[in-house]
């Protein structure tokens, strides 16, 4: 049980700064997902919390104590690594109990705690096995078990599911969420998968190039993205963003079409429209030349462009639509409150 506070966390490798100041207050028991594209600094941020990387500047507080310079073992954290990092020569039980053994806990207590964690993770039949005799999913569980056994103040996960196949990933995702709920341990979870981020997070940090673009609940980020980057990173397929000129509550696209936006603005803006918010309407302002349709079953993705604008637009319609029915071109509308407006220069939400 712990709160975690990051204030002005910076990280530089030599002269190159890779984290440009992250601030967040994490409440006790909260699950924070750090999400962003490859190389944006997610792992670096997590590893600074773990104590595996030094913090160049800023403060890390766990339960109010400044722990910038503490060794990992003195931070009362447990970490689950992407490649599990199980000790190959130790049995599952020894792997899980290793931290306790180092902490010189009595043998009986270690066995008891390992047993309890194994039960929680359905690992009991495998306690005597070596990691190489386990499947990927089981190894992943052992890595989680190793973290749970220690009963730490904070869990740190670095893309723990990225080596699993899609189906198992969904299952483990749910298990992690349930487990974290049950144990109520404050957690930081790194992923580049926005679905994982949406489903797991109490709040998420959307990172881009070492900057936190937005910190908020998944729905917050989805409904009110703070920047163009956050808008396009969260949500699938990605939000359509078109340059426009705002004239009061209307944004005029390059081809002259006006879209009602529900936001007062003027000058150069970017209009964001989620594919799933565009509706078919024979009288709608948006005329799409359909180039291709992708029927996914539950919905159908239409790829195309607007007359006079080269940029590709995606529309997602619920249900199955045959390409021939779509007849080459169709008109759409979008509700003003579903439009997002961003400043063309800064990319910030208006």
């Amino acid at each position: 049980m712990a709160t975690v506070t990051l204030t002005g966390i910076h990280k530089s490798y030599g002269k190159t700064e890779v984290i440009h100041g992250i601030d967040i207050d994490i409440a006790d028991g909260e699950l924070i997902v750090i999400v962003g594209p490859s190389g944006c600094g997610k792992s670096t941020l997590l590893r600074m919390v773990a104590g595996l990387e030094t913090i160049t500047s800023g403060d890390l507080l766990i339960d109010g104590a400044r722990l910038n310079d503490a060794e990992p073992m003195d931070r009362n954290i447990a970490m689950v690594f992407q490649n599990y990092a199980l000790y190959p020569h130790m049995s599952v039980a020894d792997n899980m109990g290793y931290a306790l053994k180092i902490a010189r806990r009595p043998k009986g207590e270690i066995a008891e705690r390992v047993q309890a964690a194994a039960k929680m993770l359905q690992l009991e039949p495998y306690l005597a096995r070596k990691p190489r005799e386990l499947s990927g999913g089981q190894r992943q569980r052992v890595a989680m078990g190793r973290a749970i056994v220690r009963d730490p103040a904070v869990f740190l996960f670095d893309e723990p599911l990225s080596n699993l196949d899609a189906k198992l990933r969904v299952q483990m995702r749910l298990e992690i969420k349930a487990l974290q709920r049950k144990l109520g341990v404050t957690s930081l979870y790194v992923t580049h998968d926005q679905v994982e981020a949406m489903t797991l997070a109490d709040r998420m940090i959307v990172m881009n190039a070492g900057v936190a673009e937005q910190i908020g609940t998944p729905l917050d980020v989805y409904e009110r993205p703070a920047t163009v980057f956050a808008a396009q990173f969260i949500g699938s397929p990605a939000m359509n963003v078109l340059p426009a000129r705002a004239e009061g509550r209307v944004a005029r696209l390059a081809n002259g079409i006006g879209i009602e936006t529900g936001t007062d603005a003027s000058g150069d803006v970017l209009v964001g429209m989620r594919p799933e918010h565009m509706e078919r309407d024979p009288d709608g302002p948006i005329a799409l030349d359909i180039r291709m349709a992708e029927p996914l079953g539950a919905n159908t993705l239409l790829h195309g462009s607007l007359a006079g604008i080269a940029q590709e637009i995606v529309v997602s319609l619920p249900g199955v639509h045959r390409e021939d029915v779509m007849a080459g071109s169709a008109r759409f509308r979008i509700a003003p409150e579903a439009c997002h407006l961003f400043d063309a220069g800064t990319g910030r939400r208006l």
Partner: protein
Amino acid sequence: MAGMVEKRGLSHWLTHAGLILGVLVIFFPIWLAFVASTVSQQDIVRPPMPLLPGDQFFENYRRALVAGVNAPVAWMLFNSMVMAMGIAIGKIVISLLSAFAIVYFRFPGRMLFFWLIFLTLMLPVEVRIVPTYEVIAGFGMLNSYTGLILPLIASATATFLFRQFFLTIPDELAEAARVDGAGPMRFFVDILVPMSRTNIAALFVILFIYGWNQYLWPLLITTDPSMNTIVMGIKQMFPSGDDLADWPVIMATSILAMLPPVVVVIAMQKLFIRGLVDSEK
């Protein structure tokens, strides 16, 4: 593979015949040595040479072990054992530690030290034997186990091998150990060393034989027969003047000298082969 095993044609038998012939050719001199160690001196010097074991087995081996020619062979075996074990264990401990330092610690001159160690790979014992002798003599270590072992104990090869192995161990493992609260030495003892055990076994076999077969160095620094090692001891058994060579005892000694390396290889075979073939994932 299965096909190759199943094949029972002419070529199968020919291959086996070839292999058996090869084994016989290689084994024949050893057999002769064994035969010579079981007959009496007269049987050896009178042609033709006997090809079947005689009845002097116990007598010859007893004479070799307790009396020998210059020193009892039992004593020389013990000396060799001390030297070979000292070199094998010492080399492994030292190279494990130095590889650990080079791979896991960042200290000034790290690469310099690595290359210095690597350079010594190019200098076999024989090349540096004169200065080494000077040093050991200066320390007063002639005719001592320390003198036998110490100059041979640093091993660039083993350090290099362990370094390469440690480099294949993912960093995450070291980090996991750190998060678990293991200090550097704890990580070394609890994780690196057990993970290296097949490599250690393979090296142990190689280094034991290397130490056991040392000839030039013991010859130089042991003048006292009670400090002779067995491999040089055999050579010392040859008569210098007109004396008769006691062939049965010399041959018994040769056979005895072969046994410990063979035992080590057989005992470590499983780990040894695994260490050479694959590293544990």
